[in-house]
């Protein structure tokens, strides 16, 4: 599946064979100062292969917790997570992670950072260099391979992190506000870059953000979350035409309509909470 909005029409059919990721009644309780706090309540989510889904919501809605549960970094309290029809426990290279902290190893060069997963898997030097170079090309970083990670900009570092995740040929790419620490211009560049990567590789992406425009620009569907307790408020289908990075402006009417629809979902939020997402 590639750059169509096709994933959308299969949404209603949970048994569709191309369902890649399925969260069933996932809840999470954290203990805080001896008290149990429900941070995530009964989340159901279905993602089909090749789909680009954004999880959107203000601080405290449990969007990152949801992603961390999918990643296997923390356990859900109840419910289940299935990837490719199999229940998931713990992290693995088949789930590529790109977080806000890009977590590059500073003593390794750009290409050596992309090779980390391959090297730990025991893939021989020539082969891992070939794969790493290919993925650096995918993210538009050919020619920087021997630079140290200090010499490159923060936007480029995040591209290295994406290339590193792709090098493991993951079933799904899990991204937690990956462009949040970047300046506005670089952020926009990176949004275009990730769409290109997605179109080229056809990989499934689950992307957490609190930025409404970002979610609209990127996604096939948006999982809109609410707070107190964190839960899914609505699944929105994003029908905006693709490819978006060449022809779409964020001032288009359709874009604005979508933004209005999302903001109206949050009408019960206080102003300061709303400020966090727009």
């Amino acid at each position: 599946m590639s750059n169509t909005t096709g994933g959308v029409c299969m949404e209603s059919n949970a048994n569709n064979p191309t369902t890649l990721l399925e969260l069933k009644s996932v809840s999470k309780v954290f203990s805080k100062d001896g008290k149990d706090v429900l941070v995530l309540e009964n989340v159901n989510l279905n993602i089909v292969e090749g789909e680009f889904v954004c999880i959107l919501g203000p601080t405290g809605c449990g969007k990152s917790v949801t992603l961390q549960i999918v990643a296997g970094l923390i356990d859900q309290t109840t419910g289940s997570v299935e990837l490719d029809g199999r229940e998931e426990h713990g992290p693995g290279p088949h789930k590529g992670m790109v977080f806000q902290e890009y977590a590059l190893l500073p003593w390794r060069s750009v290409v050596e950072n992309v090779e980390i997963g391959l090297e730990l898997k025991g893939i021989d030097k020539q082969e891992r260099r070939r794969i790493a170079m290919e993925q650096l090309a995918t993210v538009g970083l050919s020619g920087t391979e021997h630079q140290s990670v200090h010499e490159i900009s923060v936007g480029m570092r995040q591209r290295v992190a994406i290339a590193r995740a792709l090098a493991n040929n993951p079933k799904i790419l899990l991204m937690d506000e990956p462009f949040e620490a970047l300046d506005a211009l670089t952020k926009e560049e990176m949004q275009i870059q990730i769409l290109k990567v997605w179109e080229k590789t056809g990989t499934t992406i689950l992307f957490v953000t609190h930025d409404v425009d970002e979610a609209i620009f990127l996604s096939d569907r948006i999982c809109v979350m609410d707070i107190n307790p964190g839960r899914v408020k609505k699944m929105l289908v994003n029908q905006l035409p693709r490819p978006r990075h060449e022809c779409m402006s964020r001032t288009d009417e359709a874009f604005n309509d979508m933004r209005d629809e999302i903001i109206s979902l949050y009408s019960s939020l206080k102003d300061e909470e709303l400020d966090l997402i727009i």
Partner: protein
Amino acid sequence: MVDNKNGTLRSSTPSAQISLKGVTKSFLKGSGRVEAVSNCTLDIAENEFLVIVGPTGSGKSTLLKMIAGFETPSSGEILVGGKPVMGPGVDRGMIFQEYALLPWRTVLQNVELGLEFQLGKRTPQIRERAMKYIDMVGLTYAVNKYPVELSGGMKRRASLAMILVTKPRILLMDGPFNALDSKTKLTLHSEITRIWEQEHNTIIFVTSELDEAVKLSDRIVVMNKAGRISKVFANNLPRPRFGKAALEPAFHHRFIELREAVMDEVKAGAGKVNCAADF
């Protein structure tokens, strides 16, 4: 080294482990070049705890990166153990402000990483050594946690263990405790001192906080806006410098005295910019 605990300088004629000789680093800016680091000459002894302070833009981080081998001097020379630095090496471990923990690996797996790359596999020996250093930084209770579950202070500790486990002779630390709350910072100050006393490594530590500089250092190097070393202060305050010892009036007096002297030097070197806000 041992006599250090008695409050005297560790050696009157220490052997230079690191030698900076006229080190300069210049960058293109507009139509000309600016010197971020200018003609720095300094010898650093084995097992010394050297702290470099200076206002923002005084080139202290750049100098550290050159010692690490991540950047190359435009002119001058850096020798480690008598040999010129040609690039990064396992003898020098650098700890950055950012954390370099892999999110899909637990604390233990992250600390094992450096050794795993060296050996090409995980072994019980690697695990044992990783556990030793995790214990040293006080993270034993969190060995099986992933980085997303760690606080800022815990992440610093994990990054520190990740570097220490490879046993670098020289530890290069660039504002490693910046942005931590003051309680965590205080704990880490006494812990890095303890680790340094245990491991006998040489530490070069960059910071803009003078309390930190006075508390940790054997010597304090002050850099100015021009990227030059403006003054080197010997720090003869007795160790330990934490807990009860730090409350002794005589100690406290000397502490303040040194801090003020360093502060005056930093201010003098900051040009017209009011750098007092940095401290």
